[in-house]
């Protein structure tokens, strides 16, 4: 177990800037998730931590010691690859024991540790099989086992669940969480799936185009996204985001969007009449009276996912998604009044969050 610190990591591939001054600190035993759309540099970052790719600038520290000059084998980290990268010519037992064998651990100890790891993961009966004969879920376990068996200082997981089907993914996600609680290890986990990021991470790092957009607890990132990218990337269905201006009228502030006006309470901002963006999560919109002036939307389509309904509506010239309980009985074409709690409205100026409502902070830690 160890802590990990990244200092201003920069990496170029030819003309492309893959990573741009990434700083990050992961504590002992912390589960850190790097999340972002494909091509955001998260996998490159993981490979740099492992030592498989050399960074152009910046430094990687494990337990405060720079490992920049160490080869992957000397860094004492373990990695789980997206397509598992199991050695096809070796049995499961040989796959699990490979790392120990390369470090000249005595055969007897290798046997014991392989058996113990296989027991933790419930794959004892697979030990003599070759990877070819295993299902996707079993391969994933073996890949996890190969990392676990060595008890490394740091676990690096590169989209380990993305090749599993949806049901299996959910259950393995839970198991991972349990496993982490049990072995208390430091984990850096890369994913493009926001659900994985939110459910697994003690700490979530949102990245795009080689830059870190926000680092924080999952709740913070959801409740106080630092910018419009994080706001729309995290959360499903996506946050509604509207461009417009603020108008002050009778001590109250109104947001004037395209074809609608939204009361956002007593907000005092010295932005004048400059353009900004307002974000509202689908669950923060209630259908029913309350707001003044009344906000009205026309329902266009309803997606019923069973546990709840997503209502796609038109608000002025903008479209809007509203999360409604499954009992909600609406029909497309209906015009309904909306209520939005001003405290739940996110305001962004030039893409960055404006600290609002007062008292909450835009970045954690």
């Amino acid at each position: 177990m160890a802590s990990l610190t990244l200092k201003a990591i920069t990496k170029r591939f030819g003309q492309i800037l893959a990573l741009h001054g990434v700083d990050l600190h992961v504590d002992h035993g912390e589960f850190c998730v790097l999340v972002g759309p494909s091509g955001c540099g998260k996998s490159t970052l993981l490979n740099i931590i492992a030592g498989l790719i050399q960074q152009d600038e910046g430094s990687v520290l494990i337990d405060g010691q720079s490992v920049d000059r160490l080869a992957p084998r000397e860094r004492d980290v373990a990695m789980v690859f997206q397509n598992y990268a199991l050695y096809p010519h070796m049995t499961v037992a040989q796959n699990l024991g490979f790392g120990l064998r390369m470090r000249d651990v005595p055969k007897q100890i290798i046997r014991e540790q392989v058996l113990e790891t296989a027991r933790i993961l419930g794959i004892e009966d697979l030990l003599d099989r070759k990877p070819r004969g295993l299902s996707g879920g079993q391969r994933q376990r073996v890949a996890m086992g190969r990392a676990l068996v060595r008890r490394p200082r740091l676990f690096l997981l590169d989209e380990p669940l993305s090749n599993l089907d949806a049901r299996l993914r959910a259950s393995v996600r839970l198991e991972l969480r349990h496993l982490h609680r049990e072995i208390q290890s430091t984990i850096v986990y890369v994913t493009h799936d926001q659900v994985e990021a939110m459910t697994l991470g003690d700490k979530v790092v949102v990245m795009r185009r080689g830059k870190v957009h926000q680092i924080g607890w999952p709740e913070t990132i959801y409740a106080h996204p630092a910018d419009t990218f994080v706001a729309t990337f995290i959360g499903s269905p996506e946050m509604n985001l509207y461009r417009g201006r603020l108008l002050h009228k009778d001590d109250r502030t109104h947001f004037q969007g395209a074809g609608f006006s939204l009361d956002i309470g007593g907000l005092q901002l010295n932005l004048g009449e400059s353009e900004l963006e307002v974000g509202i999560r689908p669950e923060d919109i209630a259908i029913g009276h309350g707001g003044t002036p009344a906000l009205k939307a026309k329902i266009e389509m309803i997606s019923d996912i069973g546990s709840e309904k997503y209502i796609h509506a038109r608000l002025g010239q903008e479209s809007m998604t509203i999360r409604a309980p499954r009992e909600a009985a609406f029909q497309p074409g209906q015009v309904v009044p909306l209520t939005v709690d001003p405290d739940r409205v996110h305001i962004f100026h030039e893409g960055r969050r404006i600290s609002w409502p007062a008292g909450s902070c835009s970045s954690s830690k």
Partner: protein
Amino acid sequence: MTRREPTFFDQEARLAFWMLFPTFTVVLAFVIFPVIWNLWLSLKAVSLGDLRGVSLFEFNMTLENYRKVFGDPEFGTVLLTTLIYTTAGSVLSILLGLMAALLVHGEFPGRSMLRGLFISPYIAPVVAVTFTWSFILDPQLGVLNWLAVDKGLLAQPIPFLSQRWWDLDLLGVRVRVPMALTSVILFEGWRYFPFAFLFILARLQAIPDELYQAASVDGATPFQRFFHITLPQLSAVLSTLFLFRFIWTFNKFDDIFLLTRGQAGTKVLTIRVYDYAFGEFNIGASSAVAMILFGVLSVFLLVYFRWIAKEE
């Protein structure tokens, strides 16, 4: 009797029969028939002049040819030479091919040119390259001997292709090297490594990078990665290559004939076939040797598929 309408499967089967028919005919005419014909000839006393005679179809079998071939005091030596030449030549060409493939596997400027260059021994005409090598290795006119003597590496020229034994002094230990045979094996390795090179390179490039990355993180050194990842991944192609090269080298005639005429301890079974047929005009004995080649290869194939290929 009621005639059943042909079903879809019947039609498929009929179509399959007609599609296989041409191949089957070719195999019958050019593979199966020659073997049977050769076996027939090896069991009769036939001279080169008799080949046009009607007597070929008479049923007068004899084992005389086999008695002659096996009774030849040279036979054991020739068989041993053939096995050494075939095994060493095959292994050498595969080893050289492996080294060449590993060399051009990485990225570096001029890689594609080097790859093209590596193919050249294989595509050059055999007459041209054997002539060139004979010329290079010649004791009187050869550039290699001249260079070695001129630079003081050798006291006197070595007749690489015409001397049977070469006494070598290795740190006080006297070793007798079969000179001409070694030269011929080296030639074989050089000429056929491109074949192995192409196969190995293709397989090498199909090994996923993640395996090497995983092994690196697991703590494998470059050598360990080679022995634990690369070699096992190549094992199937290496054993297939050995199978092909062994068969082809075992049946090889032109290279060795053009280099040494089978002199100086390089007489292999195929040259014996030639000697009997065109030296002694004894087609029967020649066919008998050819049948022995066939028999040895059959045994090799049996061993290969029963024990070597099974490990995959």
